[in-house]
C-alpha cells in the first residue's frame, strides 16, 4: 500500500499574533511555525499502518519549516519525504493545495491519502473532502482508528457522546484523521540527527483550478475585554473581595 500523508505548517499559537498591514492576514514574518497537530496524528497513523501491514509512506509537507518536519517524519519511519512549494507568507488554503495533492497522489500511485481533519487555517476541515472530490475517491473525516486488511479499510469515526461509527471502504481513499490509534511517538534527537541526511524531494504546486468563491475582507484579533480583575494571591483577601463583588452584584448578602 502506498500512503501519502500531508503535513501542514501552521503559525505557533503560543506566539504573538499580529495583523499584517492589509488587515486581512496575520503578519507571518516574526512567527514560529509548527506542524499542525492533527497532521501529526495523520503521520502517526500512516506509520502505524506501515508497521502493522507494510506500506510505503510518502510525507508531503507544506509551509515554512517543512524541511525540519520532513526530517522528523523520516526519523519516525516515512520512506520518502517531499516539500511542496507554496506561496511564501501566505496561509495554507485547502482550496489552493488540494489540486497539487491530488496530482501527487496520482503520481505516487497512492492507495491512501491521510491528512489531519482540520487545521487552524482550515477549521472547516476541507482538505480531505477537496482531495477526495478531485480524485473521485471515497472520503471519511474525523477518524480515530484505521485498520487495513489488504485493500479494505476499517475506519472508525468519532461522533458525539462517545458514539463511534466504523466504516468499511475500499482503497483508494482519502481520510481526515482526528487522532491516531496511538499517540504520536517521541523521536529521539539522535534519530533526528541521522534523519537530517535524508534527501528531501521538491514538488511544484499545481494550479488549483478553482474560481475564487469568497475572499477575506477583514481579520480581527481578540480584543481585551477589560472586565477581568486580578484578586491577588492571598486567600483571605481574595475571599473578602469575592464576597464584596458578589454582594455588589446582588448575588449574595454581605
Amino acid at each position: 500500500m502506498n500512503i501519502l500523508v500531508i503535513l501542514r505548517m501552521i503559525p505557533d499559537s503560543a506566539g504573538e499574533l499580529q495583523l499584517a498591514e492589509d488587515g486581512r492576514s496575520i503578519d507571518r514574518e516574526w512567527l514560529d511555525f509548527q506542524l499542525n497537530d492533527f497532521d501529526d496524528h495523520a503521520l502517526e497513523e500512516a506509520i502505524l499502518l506501515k508497521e502493522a501491514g507494510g506500506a510505503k509512506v510518502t510525507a508531503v509537507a507544506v509551509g515554512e519549516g517543512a524541511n525540519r518536519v520532513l526530517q522528523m517524519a523520516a526519523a519516525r519511519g516515512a520512506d520518502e519525504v517531499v516539500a511542496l512549494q507554496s506561496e511564501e507568507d501566505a496561509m495554507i488554503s485547502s482550496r489552493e493545495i488540494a489540486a497539487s495533492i491530488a496530482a501527487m497522489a496520482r503520481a505516487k500511485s497512492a492507495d491512501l491519502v491521510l491528512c489531519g481533519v482540520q487545521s487552524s487555517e482550515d477549521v472547516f476541515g476541507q482538505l480531505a473532502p477537496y482531495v477526495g472530490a478531485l480524485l473521485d475517491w471515497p472520503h471519511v473525516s474525523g477518524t480515530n482508528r484505521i485498520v487495513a486488511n489488504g485493500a479494505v479499510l476499517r475506519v472508525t469515526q468519532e461522533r458525539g457522546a462517545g458514539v463511534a461509527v466504523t466504516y468499511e471502504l475500499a482503497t483508494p481513499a482519502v481520510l481526515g484523521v482526528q487522532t491516531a490509534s496511538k499517540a504520536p511517538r517521541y523521536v529521539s534527537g539522535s534519530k533526528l540527527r541521522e534523519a537530517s541526511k535524508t534527501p528531501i524531494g521538491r514538488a511544484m504546486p499545481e494550479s488549483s483550478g478553482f474560481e475564487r468563491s469568497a475572499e477575506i475582507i477583514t481579520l480581527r484579533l481578540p480584543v481585551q475585554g477589560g472586565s477581568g480583575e486580578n484578586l491577588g494571591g492571598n486567600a483571605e483577601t481574595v475571599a473578602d473581595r469575592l464576597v464584596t463583588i458578589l454582594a455588589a452584584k446582588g448575588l449574595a448578602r454581605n
Partner: protein
Amino acid sequence: MASTLPLWILVITAFALTAWRSRRYAVALANAPAAARFDRPMLRLQGVMVAIGMHRKMLRKPLSGVLHAIIFISFFVLLTATIDAFGSRLFPGFSLAPIGGETWIAALQDIFSVLMLVGVGLALYQRYVLRPARFDGSSGSDAAIIYVLIVLIVASLLLEAAARIVGGADGSWRPVASALAGLLDRAGMSAHAGEELFYWVHVGAILAFLVYIPGSKHRHMFLAAPNIYFRSLEPRGLAPAVPEAREAPGIDSLGQFDWKQQLDLLSCTECGRCQAVCPAHAAGLPLSPKLLITDLRDALAAGPSAAPLVGGVISEETLWACTTCRACMEACPVEIEHLPKIIDMRRHLVDEGRVSPGLQEALSNLTRLGNSMGKPSKMRARWTRELGFPVKDAREEPVDVLWFVGDYASYDPRVQEITRKVAELLTAAGVDFGILFDAERNSGNDVRRAGEEGLFETLAQSNIDEIKACSFNRIMTTDPHSLNALKNDYQHFGAAFEVLHYTALLAELIAAGKLDLHVADGARVTYHDPCYLGRYNGGFDAPRELIRAAGYTLHDMPRCRENSFCCGAGGGRIWQGDDGVTERPSENRIREALSLGDVAYFVVACPKDKVMYTAAIDALGVADRLKVVDIAELLVPRTSQALEMPTVETT
C-alpha cells in the same frame, strides 16, 4: 608435620571453589567494553589513601565509621595470625617468631582480637538495635553470616592460643589468651586436643570466609580499593559521553556497561548511605540507588537471562525517578557511579521513544523551540522590556560578560523579576554585559541527563556556535544547570569557556567594592545549596559570602553544602508528573527549614528552586512563616529601597 598435606588439600580446594564462585564476574569483566581509567596513577592512589586510610567518607557516619575502622585495623593485625596459622603448617619451619611472633606481634594479636570483637559488637548493635533505615533492602543474612564467621575466626584464634598456654607455652605476651587458658584448664580440656580443635576451627572458618566472599557484599574487602582507584577523575559535572564503539546512544544489556561500571556493582557494600540521601527514595518513588546497584549486581551474578535490562531488571519508573542530584555518588564510600548507569539506561528509553507524556512534550518543545515551555524564542528576552535600560545584544557588540540567562529565568513569570534584579545589580556595579536574545537555547543540561543525547548535542552545538560568534571575556549564568552544561558538558565539543554563576560574579563585585549595598540587621536566614552549583561545581562559599555581605546571618539547615537535599526538579524531573510521590522533596526540604525555628527567608540561588519552593510553601500553607527569596533579592543597592524583612515568630 602430619597436617601439612590435609591443609594443602583444604587450601587448594578452598581457592578452587572461590575461583569457581567468581568465574561469572571474571568473565563479565573480561568481556566488558573498555574504560579509560588508567591515567594519573599518583592521583588515583592518593584518593585510595584518603578514602581507605583516613576513612574520609566512612567517618561521616561516626558510629559506622569508627566500628568499621576498628574492624579494618584489627583485620590487618590479625592477618599476621592468619599468615602464621597457614604458614607454619603449609611450610614446616615457617614462623613469625624471629620477628616477634611470640612477643609483640602476639600481644597485638591478643589485643586486636578483643577489639575486633568490640567492632563486631558495635556492628551488631547498629544493625539489630539501632536498625537505620538505610539497611532496608540490604541482605540481612549476608551480614549475619559474616558476623558469625568473624566471631568464629577470632574466638578460635584466642582459644587456640589459650590451649597452647595450657600446654605450657609462654602466655606473658597474651593476657587475654592467658585468662581464657585459666577457663580452659578448669574445663579440663586436654591442651593438645584443644589446640588442634581450635586450630582447625580457625583455618576452617578463614577458608569458609574466603569461599563465601565471592557471593557476598564482603567482596568489598578485595574490590573497594580498586574501585576507588579506578574512580572517575573527570569533572563531576561531565556526564559520560556515548562511546564511539556503541551503536545506539543507550544501554539495554548488562554486558554493554564498561568494566568499571560492572566493577561498581561488585564493590557495593550495601551500606545504604546512597539510599539514605536519595530524594527520590525519600519521596516514596521506586528508586533506591542501593537497590539499583544490587539489582544490577544480582542480574550480573545470575548470568544471561530472558528478562530485559531496561524495563525488566530495572523498571522504567525507577530510572525516571532520579533527579540526578548526585547525593548518592557523593555519599558512596567506595565511589560507585550510579548516575552514569541511570543516564545510559535512560538514553536507551529515549531512543526507543519510551518517555512519559510530560517529558515528551518538554523534549518536543525543546526540539522545536529550544525551550521546554513551548514559548517562542522571540519572547525569550521579553523580560528586558520592563527594565529601565537597554540590555546589550552580545551578538552585535563586544561585551565583558556574556550572560547566559536560561529558560526559567527568561520565561517563567515567577523568576523574571529576579532576572531583572540581577540585571540591575550588574548595571549598578558597572558590569559591561550582554545576552544572546532569541539565539539562546536551553543549555541541554537536564536534556542530557534525561537521556536525550541527540537533542543535547543539537542544543549544545547551537549555543556553542552562537557563543563563539560573540566577543566576550567570561560567561555568567543564572541557572546552576546551565552553568554545569556550559562549564563541563560542552567540553565534549572542545568548547572551553570561562563560566561562572551569578553568585560568584556578584561576590567578586562586592569584594572589589563595586556594589554598595543596604546592610540588614543580622536577621537569620537559611540557604539551600543547589545541586548543580554546590555538589557538582563546588559553589558553596560565594552565596554564603553574599548573604553575609547583605547583612544577614546564615543559619544552615542540617543538610547543607555537599549534603544538600535536592528540590526534586533536576535531571528532567521537573517535566514529569508527581505520580507515586508521597512527599515532594521540596516539601521535605521546607519542613527542614521550618524546623530551624528562627528563619524568615529561605534563600535560593537557582531559578528552578524559586519555582519549586514557592510551590512547596503554598502546598504546605506556610507562606506566613517562610518566604522564598533569591539571593539577588537580598542584595539591594543603596540607591534603591531597602528590603523589608517580614517578622518571624521564633519557635
